[in-house]
């Protein structure tokens, strides 16, 4: 984990710096210095790993992790559906855990490891989940598919880590891989084409193979 002090220029440093400058300059420069400080502090330098490779970016603070991946790093495998946490198309793994990349800021991920669909596997070397989606026709248009695949890979890990779900009957017993569990746990990934049945089949096959 990254130490919290590592942020390159803090707002306080900037404000302190501009305040120091203005003691010797005119009121006009005062407002100018403050404006400048504000604009600069609206971006932040951030370094994180994406698919194993260290990436350093200076980003407008508003940039979502999703936009950083797609627009700045040109990893367009991760999709933008709703941009509001409702569809799951933007699902990536952050330090191995699935998350909606649209509802987190890139600058909040200093030192984190991000895995996108591209990092799971490539056409010549597919991840077993990617291969299973192809085999079982787990898609039609394919737009939700990167999110479905990232989500399902992490979801199976959650079951193995004994994280319960809404349909887990006994909270004190180990979590099981059943079709009901898979459906409930994948409910954060919407498929407008309705490929759900084939998606569940693909996931079930991978789950069985690894179990």
């Amino acid at each position: 984990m990254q130490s919290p002090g590592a942020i390159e220029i803090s707002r306080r440093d900037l404000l302190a710096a501009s305040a120091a400058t203005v003691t010797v300059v005119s009121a006009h420069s005062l407002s100018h210095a403050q404006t400048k400080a504000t604009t600069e502090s609206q971006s932040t330098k951030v370094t994180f790993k994406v698919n194993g490779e260290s990436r350093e970016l200076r980003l407008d603070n508003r940039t979502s992790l999703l936009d950083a991946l797609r627009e700045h790093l040109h990893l367009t495998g991760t999709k933008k559906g709703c941009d509001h946490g409702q569809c799951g198309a933007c699902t990536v793994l952050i330090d191995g855990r699935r998350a909606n990349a649209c509802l987190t800021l890139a600058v909040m991920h200093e030192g984190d490891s991000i895995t996108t669909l591209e990092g799971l596997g490539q056409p010549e070397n597919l991840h077993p989940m990617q291969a299973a989606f192809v085999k079982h026709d787990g898609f039609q248009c394919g737009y939700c598919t990167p999110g479905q695949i990232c989500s399902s890979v992490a979801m199976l890990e959650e079951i193995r880590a004994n994280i319960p779900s809404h349909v887990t009957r006994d909270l004190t017993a180990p979590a099981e891989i059943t079709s009901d569990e898979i459906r409930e746990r994948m409910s954060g990934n919407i498929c407008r084409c309705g490929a759900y049945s084939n998606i569940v089949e693909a996931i079930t096959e991978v789950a069985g193979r690894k179990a």
Partner: protein
Amino acid sequence: MRAFSYERPASIEAAAQAAAGMDGAKFIAGGTNLLDLMKLEIERPTHLIDVNRLGLDRIEATPEGGLRIGALVRNTDLAADERVRRDYALLSRALLAGASGQLRNRATTAGNLLQRTRCPYFYDTNQPCNKRLPGSGCSALAGFSRPLAVVGVSDACIASHPSDMAVAMRALDAVVETVRADGTTRSIPIADLHRLPGDTPHIEHVLEQGELITAVILPKPAGGKQIYRKVRDRASYAFALVAVGAVVQPDGTGRVAIGGIAPKPWRKEAADAELPNGAKAAAAKLLEGARPTDDNAFKLTLVERALSAVLSEARG
């Protein structure tokens, strides 16, 4: 989204101080509610204070036999904690009934408590809404109010509080611990955290500007059967129309909090006292003074029926 500056303070004290005296400063935790609202410019902070790396992500036993849950513990981790599953099953169940796996991995204990309403007009910036724009009027009163509140409401606002977790916390008598900018701390019983709308629906809780939630304390386990029953339009990934969180003892006594019907998790001592007499009697106390709309009057019946189902499950 409006531009803002961003900082990652090094300590809890620094975080609370950073927000003091700066009206536009806000804490960001999971970001799953705040960023959603910032994109729509419903929330417009000028400065964000990232509280994710302050070491507030632990769950510890208290000397009183309860649990101290760090404000930044993720909803997934809280629901999966062995002690919570064993001794506070109601809390695990409520958390697991909310949002999606992805969202629960980011959503935090404090952020969940302070999440804002899902009233459709609060989200639609073209419509009047007293909560979003004080004094502009309430579009829900004569509009689509099916998901909204029936008790604790005012002429200014009938928004419901959307949290599942908060319902369990209310039934379990949780206490919220905070630190203020001047370094002083306080403990706020969850019953007193959220405010009713009155004529200031934009003020939703009692926290001061810059007051940071550091933990939520659970008293020692309540025992009994702990049941969370959420009624919603879809079987998963939907907010509650009505949710019942109950702790029922073998002798039929217990406590109950309701979600989806009020601006805060709703509990009444008088209703707890009626639990041994059945759902009808308890629901009557819970719904005293209810002011439903034509759209959401169904919730009155639904509360009684959901509670009835919970009580028979507890007996069974």
